[in-house]
């Protein structure tokens, strides 16, 4: 896998100079490479991994399982497109297994999400059933530890 992409995916906060040093490439080359990835749509954007539990105006998220009837012409794509259109929906994944889609849905309260599922999702033509799982606590998100559990690796004893 491309090392530049790996680095950025793990932490997009590095400066181009730092990345250039770490990868042993000229900074101009790194800048050009990032531009190209952005232009080609390989890098879609940069987001901070926020530990929302530490923030006052928090929100809730749920994972929604969706069973659907695929369309003859377009398969699952049309349903995906419908789901993606809701601003409450953060992520849409087509799944192998017991259900077809997994959605990550965001709302201010559990009630918001419950209403969204009941009124907007279940009523879509072709949706057979839904299952809602509220996320209670995030321990690790996108590879990052969100807890204050001891980070053993950096707290090791002095040994020669």
């Amino acid at each position, binding site marked *: 896998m491309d*090392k530049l992409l790996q*680095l950025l995916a793990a*932490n997009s906060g590095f400066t181009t100079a*730092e990345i250039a*040093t*770490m*990868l*042993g490439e000229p900074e101009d080359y790194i800048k050009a490479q990032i531009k190209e990835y952005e232009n080609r749509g390989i890098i879609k954007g940069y987001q901070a991994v926020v530990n929302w539990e530490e923030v006052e105006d928090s929100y809730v998220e749920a994972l929604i399982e969706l069973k659907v009837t695929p369309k003859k012409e377009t398969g699952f794509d049309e349903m995906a497109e419908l789901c993606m259109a809701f601003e409450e929906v953060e992520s849409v994944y087509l799944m192998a297994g017991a259900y077809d889609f997994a959605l990550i849905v965001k709302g201010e309260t559990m009630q918001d999400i419950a209403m969204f599922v009941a009124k907007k999702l279940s009523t879509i033509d072709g949706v057979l059933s839904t299952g809602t799982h509220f996320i209670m606590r995030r321990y690790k998100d996108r590879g990052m530890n969100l807890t204050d559990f001891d980070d053993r*690796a*950096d707290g*090791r*004893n*002095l*040994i*020669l």
Partner: protein
Amino acid sequence: MIDYDKYFNDKIKEVQPSGIRKFFDIANEMDDVISLSIGEPDFQTPWHIRDEGIRSLEKGKTWYSPNRGFAELRREIANYYERRFGVSYDADEQTLVTVGGSEAIDLAFRTLIQEGDEVIIPEPSFVCYEPLAVMAGGTPVIISTKNEDNFRLKAADLEAAVTPKSKLLVLPFPNNPTGAILEKQDLVEIAEVVKKHDLLILSDEIYSELTYGGKRHVSISSIDDMYERTVVINGFSKSYAMTGWRLGYALGPAPIIAQMTKLHQYGIMSAPTTAQYAAIEALRNGDRDVKKMRDEYDMRRRLIVDSFNEMGLSCFEPLGAFYVFPCIKSTGLTSEEFCTRLIMEKHVAVVPGTAFGKSGDGFVRVSYSYSIKHLKIALERIREFLKELNYGS
């Protein structure tokens, strides 16, 4: 009150406690100390390797192993040395599984050294060679490797250190603490001196998987006429992030391994059984893990070398292990002063070069076996420290 001193072996009284003890105690008193002093991988043992250890326990494999180690593991070790470094060893006669590389070093010393024999040790180097050589009855003869030679051992310096009493040369490369490596040409030149003076070699290759800049580790046992004169020490700690499993090995001429095995048998019995099962998996399916960790270390290495040079602490490019060895002479402080002030004023722990021999004075050992996030915080604090010293302005 009993005067215990009179009971002690004279040699053990000579042995000094490890040079970083003082910093360990200071660091323990502080709760926000950020350390760059560790000498082990920050990675955990890859999961599939741990899993094999666990599985062996589930199957109830909790007994001693054969003294020399499981035959299956010895075969894998022999295959590995052939595959990676092009040197063949017989799994039965020339391979001994030990409790870490350290035990193997101790065994080799006690097997080969007689009272009064000189043991040639390049320094700076890992802290165990000198005390273990002394305990075995040897007289350590130190060669100081130099910054201008990129801390490589030079054949001419070896030649100058040889006396009629010289018996064993310790070859600790890739080197802890300098990060220096030896390349084939260096080894060929050293080999000539070794042969001329009929020396034996203890080649500590524990960092052999951690070399950078396209340089592959070369074992001196692969150099003409050196195979029969070399005991190779290696292990699983650094390459597979398995320090806590305590598993190493020695490879060498069958008669030497046979003698070492006796000592191992009476002193240790056998290396940990669980660790041996895990190690078989490491050698069979661990190449990818090794590469992944090496690539990660390499990125950190570039970042940290660059940062030190930029701060004005000149730092030769280390091509092995996971340490950098910047020169701090330009600050006007000694290694001890630098490290003491850095930990007291900025709560950053690095190890004074003098912990690895007198020739380490003027240098500090900085480990990059930490996450990049951790390294960046520590480097920032060192930068502030230098600024407050009015350094470089």
